[in-house]
């Protein structure tokens, strides 16, 4: 076990990373992702802050692909002027986006308590 002090610092950093990840998914995209990468650089392997920074990067990269790539494909395949395209894109984007947000929320409270996602 490490000293209490570094633990606290790590939890703080893990929390910041999880928060940045959540913000990137909600009201502050891009900027928060840069912040997340900066936090990531400060962490060392096998620590809880590293874990949450990596998790945050993963969630956001996956979210970006799953949300934008798939939506773009839907528009490409369905056609911009077809109402059905928008039926799929809007419903899909809204619900899947929310699932990512809820997931990032859980990651945040786990970071607050200094835990990994599931223990």
């Amino acid at each position, binding site marked *: 076990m490490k000293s209490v002090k570094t633990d606290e610092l790590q939890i703080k950093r893990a929390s910041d990373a999880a928060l940045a990840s959540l913000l990137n998914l909600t009201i502050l995209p891009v900027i928060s992702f840069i912040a997340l990468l900066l936090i990531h650089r400060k962490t060392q392997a096998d620590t809880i802050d590293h874990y949450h920074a990596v998790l945050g990067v993963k969630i956001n990269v996956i979210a970006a692909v799953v949300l934008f790539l798939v939506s773009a494909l839907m528009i490409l395949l369905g056609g911009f002027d077809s109402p059905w395209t928008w039926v799929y894109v809007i419903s899909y984007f809204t619900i899947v986006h929310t699932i990512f947000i809820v997931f990032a*929320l859980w990651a945040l*409270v786990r970071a*607050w308590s200094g835990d990994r996602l599931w223990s």
Partner: protein
Amino acid sequence: MKYESQSIAKLYFIAAIGLFVGQILFGVILGLQYVIGDFLFPEIPFNVARMVHTNLLIVWLLFGFMGAAYFLVPEESERELYAPWLAKLMFWIFLVAGALTILGYLLVPYATLAEITMNDLLPTMGREFLEQPTITKIGIVVVLLAFIFNIGMTILTGRKTVITLVLLTGLVGLAVFFLFSFYNPHNLVLDKYFWWFVVHLWVEGVWELIMASLLAYVLIKVTGVDREVIEKWLYIIIAMALISGIIGTGHHFFWIGAPDYWQWLGSVFSALEPIPFFMMTLFAFNVVNKRRRDHPNKAATLWALGTAVMAFLGAGVWGFLHTLAPVNFYTHGTQITAAHGHMAFYGAYVMVVLTIISYSMPIMRGREAANARAQVVEMWSFWLMTVSMVFITLFLTGAGILQVYLQRYSEDPMSFMATQEKVEIFYWMREGAGLIFLIGLILYIISFFVKGEDVKMLGSSVSIEETS
């Protein structure tokens, strides 16, 4: 159960669940009328079925809130209810008045009901959600006042906690804003403007206080997390609710003839309205993660978490979807509105009432939690109802997007009725999801009768998997 008078809640909860069943049966009828237009016509026209559906919803939620208050207030205040007899009397008055009103809707034409209840003396009928005869509205006020008096006296003469004070504020607000239902000016714009003082300031204002306090109470009980922490969250959640929600009323003033500044005010403040719901999810996740004990009532914990998430989804996300004026210009009064209305009401208010019922019913029946098998059935009903509600919402959203495109957005707009035919497939799917919701509800009721061995709270952690 610490105080005997808490058990009055049971009456209220049983009535609530009974009326919930009625609401859903009429929902299924409405859904069918959407695709088979002449179903039950002219015996039960759509508007009558809709009135029954929405009014039953409101009435059973009120029964639920009252039951919740009667259960938790004595315990929080550390004393018996101020006047148990009054609570029982009001129960019967409310139930009979409610039943008569619904029967009135179903048995005589609405115009006749307006006539025999002498609506012309003080016209309040015939507005969405406020269809009740004036005499029923007066009855509701009387019941609410007696209820608030009873609860208020219990709180003020007992131990005061943040939870009971917030709850009381919410309940008083509920009663006060309901008074606007008696104001029905001839001027249509004024009528609409103040109509929202009941509807919006209820669901996006004072009801949020009720919801947050009920959620906080159950979370304290099932997680054992420190009250101080929970109270801080509670304050900040309701602060955000009112700060955003009061001026947020403006998102209903875009297209009813009100001044243009509401476009900005309504958009900006209502865009903040998801914050309290977002924080409720964060709060619920956080305290469950930091729980100090594993309460044997797993179902109640599931309902509590579900409430937070689904309220965020239905009110927060689906509300935000159409709340900005440039978007609302196209979506106003379409199936998008119906989609949001369903998930928000279900996720926030239906679920919070089911949460407190789930937590308190076993206690009122003399055990800490329902037996493991009953809980499994209850959790099945949770998933069936919740998932089918997500699908109802998605199908209505699909219908709404198509409707907006064909009828409002396209260069060559289609008529309303022609558009409705184009989106029929979504209505069929919604009806299918609705039937699954009904099955979930039946299962929910069955869960109260499933027998099995009691689950006890053993020191720190025992999971129902181990006992089952």
